[in-house]
């Protein structure tokens, strides 16, 4: 009996050892695979952004260390058309200078290394430190903006250090982060001010310390040009009106819903207010729910809206990718056909590919560009100011919504979470989102 127990225990021990070895091997294999995906080696170098093949350039002139020219292909990719650049000379020059830097060669391995870390040295020995400080950075849109910022910073040999900070949706932390980079005497700051005018005091502190601050994606804070350098982006009120124009044309009457980011964030409240005011009286906004731009919340929120309003005619929101995931899942779970008039601020490949797959003519999707490359222009504005340029207080890109059925967001071989109008080279995108 005793001997039987011993041999039983020996067998069990043997099984445990085999199991441990198996788990260790599996973990090692995963680590190697992950390492290959995340590794920075073998990436080489190339243009800092999408440049296309035509070689045609838009714009003319130069100054303050910049050339006011950008490839037409870059502009068409980022803005849908080379014509959709600011009309006035000053903002146009900054926009062209910023987007034109897509032709400059950068080290992709270094870019990826910087993207994975909060701080990195560029190795140029440059004396400038640039910082991208934001209130929230935990979604694909923000992480892509981070990469666009890094790629742009790497085009400047005078930049020796790149800093990134996210306050994880905490206003107090956002203020502390801003104060910290001011104390560190960084040379330039780019930010997405998720907390709107609550950031004015720290913007003013930075200005007092001689540090240019620019915002992108119409992260609007009162007093551009006075409290800080400039705001780059599209006019979000015009975006809301463009959404309303689509709704008014395609919906005769019925209910529509809005979703937004954090409660009270200036981006969502701006387009929502303008869309609501521009809708015809027969269209009713029955829900306006904040999602905190958190993909995990979208399904529940859409499900809640559909429970009460199963005949929903349309929905407006910022992030199209979330509606390809959680939004679609909610429609499926509710047994309601995924159709209606959907207007979005961003153009992630996922929703385009889903629409292509569903082939439902009643699914009408209109979208704008996610605007990730706007952060490049914001950094260039800061850099030009450091060289003594007078920067216009606003650099506003004209808006033209695109129709999914005519211009698909779905690009073959493109990471599903990524915005199709991003300028990040595909090679890098695949390493970021394998």
């Amino acid at each position, binding site marked *: 009996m005793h001997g039987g127990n011993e041999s039983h225990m020996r067998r069990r021990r043997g099984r445990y050892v085999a199991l441990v070895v198996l788990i260790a091997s599996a973990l090692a294999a995963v680590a190697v695979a992950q390492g290959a995906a995340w590794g920075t080696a073998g990436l080489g170098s190339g243009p800092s952004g999408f440049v296309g093949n035509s070689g045609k350039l838009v714009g003319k002139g130069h100054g303050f260390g910049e050339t006011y020219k950008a490839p037409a292909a870059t502009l068409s990719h980022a803005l849908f058309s080379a014509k959709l650049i600011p009309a006035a000379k000053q903002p146009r020059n900054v926009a062209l200078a910023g987007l034109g830097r897509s032709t400059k060669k950068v080290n992709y391995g270094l870019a990826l290394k910087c993207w994975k870390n*909060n*701080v990195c040295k560029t190795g140029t020995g440059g004396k400038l430190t640039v910082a991208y400080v934001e209130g929230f950075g935990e979604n694909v849109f923000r992480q892509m903006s981070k990469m666009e910022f890094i790629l742009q910073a790497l085009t400047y040999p005078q930049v020796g250090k790149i*800093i990134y*900070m*996210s*306050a*994880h949706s*905490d*206003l*107090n*932390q956002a*203020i*502390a*982060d801003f*104060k*910290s*980079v*001011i*104390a*560190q*005497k960084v040379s330039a700051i780019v930010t997405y001010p998720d*907390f*709107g*005018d*609550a*950031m*004015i*005091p720290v913007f003013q502190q930075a200005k007092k310390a001689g540090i240019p601050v620019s915002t992108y994606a119409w992260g609007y804070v009162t007093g551009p040009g006075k409290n800080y350098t400039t705001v780059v982006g599209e006019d979000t009120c015009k975006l809301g009106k463009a959404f309303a124009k689509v709704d008014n044309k395609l919906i005769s009457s019925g209910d529509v819903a809005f979703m937004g980011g*954090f*409660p*009270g*964030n*200036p981006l969502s*409240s701006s387009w929502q207010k303008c869309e609501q005011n521009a809708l015809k009286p027969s269209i009713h906004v029955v829900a306006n729910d904040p999602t905190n731009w958190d993909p995990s919340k979208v399904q529940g929120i859409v499900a809640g809206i559909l429970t009460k309003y199963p005949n929903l005619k349309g929905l407006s929101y910022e992030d199209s990718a979330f509606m390809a995931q959680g939004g679609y899942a909610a429609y499926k779970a509710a047994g309601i056909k995924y159709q209606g008039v959907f207007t979005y601020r961003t153009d992630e490949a996922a929703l385009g590919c889903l629409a292509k797959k569903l082939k439902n003519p009643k699914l009408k999707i209109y979208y704008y560009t996610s605007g990730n490359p706007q952060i490049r222009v914001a950094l260039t504005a800061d850099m030009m100011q450091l060289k003594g340029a007078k920067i216009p207080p606003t650099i506003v890109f004209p808006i033209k919504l695109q129709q999914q059925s005519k211009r698909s967001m779905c690009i073959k071989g493109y990471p599903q979470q990524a915005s199709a109008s991003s300028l990040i080279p595909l090679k890098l995108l695949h390493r970021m989102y394998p």
Partner: protein
Amino acid sequence: MRRGWLPLALMTGLIVALGAYTQAHHSEFLGKLNLNGLLLEAMPLLIVSLGQVCALLVGGFDVSVAALMTICVVTASFTLTPTISGIALIPGALALVGVGLATGAFNAFLIRVLKLPSIVATLGTLSVLEGASLALRAYPTGPINTDVTNVLDSSVSFVPYAFIGVVVLALAADFWLYRTRGGLALRAVGLDATSSRRLGMSAGRIIFLAFVACSVLASIAGFYLAAEVQVGSPIIGNQALESIAAAVLGGASLAGGKGSFVGALLAAFFLTEIDNVLPLFQQPTEYADMTIGILILLALVLYQAPELITRIRNARRRPAPLPATTGEARTG
């Protein structure tokens, strides 16, 4: 008494150690600009932590403080507008304190009269206040009078006058708590409300006043949040858990009856120091949350270790009393 010094010594040691380590790597840490920023940044948490000690001393929690601070910022954007000046600002400032008083009285009513557990009562108040803030200001707007914010931020060298004031307040409060009959009554009620009532203390009134004091201090902390953002932001306050953490790290017992205002002050300063230091090292802020969590657990174990050891020893020496006996002892 010796044990009471442990949190104070630990927090002081941690503040100095973290500061010295940071200074060794980043010379800008002890720069006037950073120190002034650190002290101003700490002000809201310092003040609200003192309030939280009041709630913890009577064996409760107040998680509504963060939302209360937010609604005070929003209120300030209506009552302390840039168009008002001089003596006319006083009613506007009093409005904020009034919001604190009303919230404290409401919380105390829920806890004392309706007998709701403090965490449930204040959680309900938190939701009401959060919603009210967003209803009043859908997004950050409504500038706050800069004369007021400048006064609040005014400093001698890098030390804000308000910081000196709050240190004096904490010292006086600890003196009152441990050297006066009023302080003794507060601790006694926190330790055992039933017994202290039988001894003639007005337990209900003391608990009521403790929650009112907590809310009033939170509303004063709201002034400093208002000075930080200078606009009616509906999403700024998030110091509820941090204030509880500061009070506990400063030596307050979750069971009530024990705590230190100076300890909470030191702990609140240490927590802000972590927030200030991490960006200098370019470390993600999630490390701050993890550090705070680990520190709370360690502090709870460390501060309660003597009691735990005594309990374990006693349990080993004699068999556990019968449940009926325990019940009698408690009710008797």
